[in-house]
């Protein structure tokens, strides 16, 4: 306990929002909850009291997650929350909107259901990779209390060590410092008001707060061999299938071909793969490949154009340009001097009129979830769910664990339009797909 107290004293009592988190307080709403969920399924039913104890123990290790979201004059900020975090029962709708006021002020939720421990985060706090590190430590601490493990295995953040400044500092600004000289040679890239809008899925939507999850589980070997036939990665294959599904949906919903719009897909890029920064808060950027249905004749066309796009855009220089643009905008004296309520209005206005018209769907691939061998034998499954929003009725999240890959679709439209096409196509290509829903 002494160590924990010391840790608490040494850490700052409040944190600035990181560069990419600055927009989330403005755009977060019941229609756009900006939540995602990571879960681990163990081999036995979860003991709620023991998990609560584990959560209390690791709380001081993650001071940047145990926070309130407060509003200042010019920006929102995160303030340390002295309350104990709560372990909740499961909800029928994962990734539902998180109300901190009913959650002791916390911006993340821990939920248990049978053998599963799930952590739901608001995006203002962290991204998938940061959240996964937290969940690993929580599950590890739980297994230690349960007597299944003796100590934290290597590769897991220990619950009793001090947090490093690198974990909670703004990783984007750290990149700017690291690449100071190189940045001078790069041009500006960002334009706030961008190209024409893309196709949006239409159709009736579920009542507010309701959400449908469709999880497809596929053996990793099946997906790998399919990707190999197209000489693509798994992310490229699934993104191309998503785009193909969007084109088909547009074909069904918009009868007049002359009015067909391009489809755009948001693909997050984990910046930790490019910079050795141990960031626990948001450290990812987005690329948005666009495909014009009028120029597409076959699936091969989509996958080729996508591969070209990824090759051209996911480069260190290009990502650095995006970091530079984002940071310059956030650090501009003019923007910093505007009161937060005006900023919120402007951000929401731009987001509603311009930002959301640039993509038709979202797909995120967290990659293969690797756990230390000692822990892996107690964890049966790992999963991720991304909450959709009114602007993108379907969102897809992919994660691999052991020999299988989970493709999770969260949707708020009534009909599973994208999932149906994507999974049927995968079956046609020879994959064995198992489906589960909420």
């Amino acid at each position, binding site marked *: 306990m002494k160590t924990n107290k010391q840790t608490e004293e040494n850490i700052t009592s409040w944190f600035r929002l990181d560069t990419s988190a600055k927009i989330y307080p403005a755009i977060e*709403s*019941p*229609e756009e909850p900006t939540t995602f969920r990571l879960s681990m399924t163990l081999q036995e039913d979860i003991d709620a009291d023991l998990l609560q104890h584990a959560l209390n123990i690791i709380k001081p290790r993650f001071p940047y997650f145990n926070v309130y979201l407060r509003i200042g004059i010019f920006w929102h900020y995160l303030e340390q929350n002295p309350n104990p975090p709560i372990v909740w*029962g*499961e*909800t*029928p*709708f*994962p990734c*539902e909107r998180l*109300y901190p006021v*009913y959650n002791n002020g916390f911006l993340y939720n821990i939920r248990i*259901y049978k053998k599963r421990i799930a952590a739901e985060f608001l995006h203002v706090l962290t991204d998938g990779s940061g959240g996964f590190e937290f969940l690993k430590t929580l599950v590890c601490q739980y297994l230690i209390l349960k007597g299944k493990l003796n100590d934290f295995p290597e590769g897991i953040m220990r619950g009793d060590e001090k947090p490093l400044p690198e974990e909670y500092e703004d990783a984007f600004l750290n990149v700017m410092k690291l690449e100071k000289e190189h940045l001078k040679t790069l041009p500006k890239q960002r334009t706030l008001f961008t190209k024409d809008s893309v196709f949006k899925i239409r159709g*009736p939507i*579920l*009542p*507010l*707060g*309701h959400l449908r*999850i*469709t*999880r*497809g589980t596929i053996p990793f070997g099946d997906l790998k061999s399919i990707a190999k036939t197209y000489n693509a990665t798994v992310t490229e294959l699934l993104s191309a299938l998503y785009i193909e599904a969007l084109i088909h949906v547009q074909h069904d919903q918009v009868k007049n071909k002359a009015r067909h719009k391009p489809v755009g897909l948001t693909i997050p890029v984990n910046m930790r793969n490019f910079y050795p920064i141990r960031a626990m808060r948001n450290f990812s950027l987005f690329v948005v490949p666009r495909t014009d249905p009028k120029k597409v004749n076959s699936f091969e066309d989509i996958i080729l154009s996508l591969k070209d796009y990824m090759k051209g855009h996911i480069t260190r220089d290009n990502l650095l340009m995006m970091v530079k643009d984002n940071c310059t905008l956030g650090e501009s004296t003019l923007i910093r001097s505007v009161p937060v309520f005006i900023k919120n*209005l*402007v951000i*929401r*206005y731009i987001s*509603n*009129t311009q930002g959301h018209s640039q993509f038709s769907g979202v797909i995120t691939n967290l990659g293969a979830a690797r756990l230390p061998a000692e822990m892996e034998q107690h964890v049966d499954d790992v999963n991720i769910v991304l909450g959709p929003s*009114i602007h993108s009725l379907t969102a897809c999240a992919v994660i691999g664990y052991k020999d299988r890959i989970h493709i999770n679709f969260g949707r708020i439209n009534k009909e*599973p339009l994208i*999932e*149906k096409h994507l*999974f*049927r196509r995968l*079956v*046609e290509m020879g994959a*064995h*797909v*198992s*489906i*589960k*829903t*909420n």
Partner: protein
Amino acid sequence: MSYCVHCGVKLAEYHEACPLCHTKVMDPNAKIDPQTRDYPVYREYLSGRSTNHMRRLLAGTILTSVFSMYCIILLLVNFIVNRQFSWSLIPVWSLMYLWFTVAYPFFRIKNTFFRLYTYDSFATAVYLLVLNLIISGDVHWAKFAASGIIFIWIIMNGIFISERVKKWIPMIAYYIIASVLFTALFAFMLIDTASIPTLILPIYLAVLFFALLSFFMIKALVFDLYNFLAIIFFHASLLSVAIDLIVSNFLTQSYSLGWSLVVISALLPLSLTALMLRNIKKLRTYVAKKFHR
């Protein structure tokens, strides 16, 4: 374990139909064990569009009944006391206008912002014209107010059309034609030219300013009827203050507040009520989620 005959995917044990294409699983002997579900089940009767529609219909019917009751009482009292319908026509006509703007949207399945705005604009214009006719037997002042409202509608209509058309030439042509027609109409109606710079123009500018401010704020805070109402009521009360000040300056050469205080005392509580209702709705949603079976 079953497979969907259409999609070819393997289904979980608890699925009675394929979640992708809704094809029923053809095994009548299969027993569904609820314990195998991945998530708890939500009470189905709480969900569904029909329930929401029923609630809206109920709200509309209640409001209609209340308004009708008031109208009947007012007409009866007037008839019993004066043996004719005289003063009661004004509140009855006002209640009919209120019904159209508040209760009628509940009966419509699809309410877009622009449709509501169009209905309300034209309803307000007609309301003012008839009100003037009832009070003084002509449309002397109401024609200016009504033409102002239509003018604002023309501007807003231009904004909405520009979102769809996205071409400059038709939009400029639209505004030029609308402005020319409006100016011609206004010049035709105008009798007292001296009041333009001190009365009519400031009122039009105030209306234009608050209309655009409301539009921008509603666009930024979309999807919430309560926010929408709170903004409209709040801006309407500010607008009434502005108009009151302009009129008092025109008549007495000094700024003082009169009738607008009554309008504020009615609209500000309505605005606050709308905000409060919004929060209670949040609470209701939360309780429904947490106490599901």
